[in-house]
């Protein structure tokens, strides 16, 4: 999974700390999310997407085959 969290965060001039506080997680979790090393819950993913005003699939991008069961 690839994410565009960093891109959106920088667009809105937010620090990792600020984003973490806005979506209710620890800063380290934002770091993990930005590196694509943590799959967030549906609730957290929606919270992040809503904060940036975009659909979830614009923030979290799965490559072809990654969603196959």
């Amino acid at each position, binding site marked *: 999974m690839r994410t565009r969290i960093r891109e959106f965060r920088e667009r809105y001039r937010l620090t990792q700390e600020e984003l973490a506080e806005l979506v209710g997680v620890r800063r380290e979790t934002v770091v993990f999310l930005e590196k694509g090393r943590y799959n*967030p*819950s549906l609730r*957290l993913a929606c919270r992040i997407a809503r904060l940036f005003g975009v659909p979830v699939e614009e923030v979290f991008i799965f490559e072809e085959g990654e969603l196959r069961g």
Partner: protein
Amino acid sequence: MLINLSMLYISNTDMLSYRRFLILGGAVTFAGGAALGYGIATGSQMLVLLAFGTALVLVHLLRRRVDELVVDERLARAGEAASHRVLQLAVPAAALAGVLLVSAGRSEGMLLVLVSTAFMLLYAALFAWYSRRDSLAY
């Protein structure tokens, strides 16, 4: 070992950063562990209970004063995975040790077997409970 007591003082209105909580919580755990160890070494059950209970209460009180998020969903998941792994490893190990002790004629092995069985039953009951709930912590 010298401990700066002023660092440990917390007034009613003080809130703790996560880092300060880790330092103070670590100090309380260390002191509690030392007292507990001393209690075991000297055979004082009262000291063991007192040290364990006091440390537990103090850590809980400290945690309530942390003004940052202590556990988020990522850490909660990591905790779940760690707990599950401990259960997978520790319970069979304790059961095996218990069976070996019983077969060697040592009656205390039965206690290990019983505790292992109790843990497995508790796990099954809690699994059934949580799997029926609409949503978990996150």
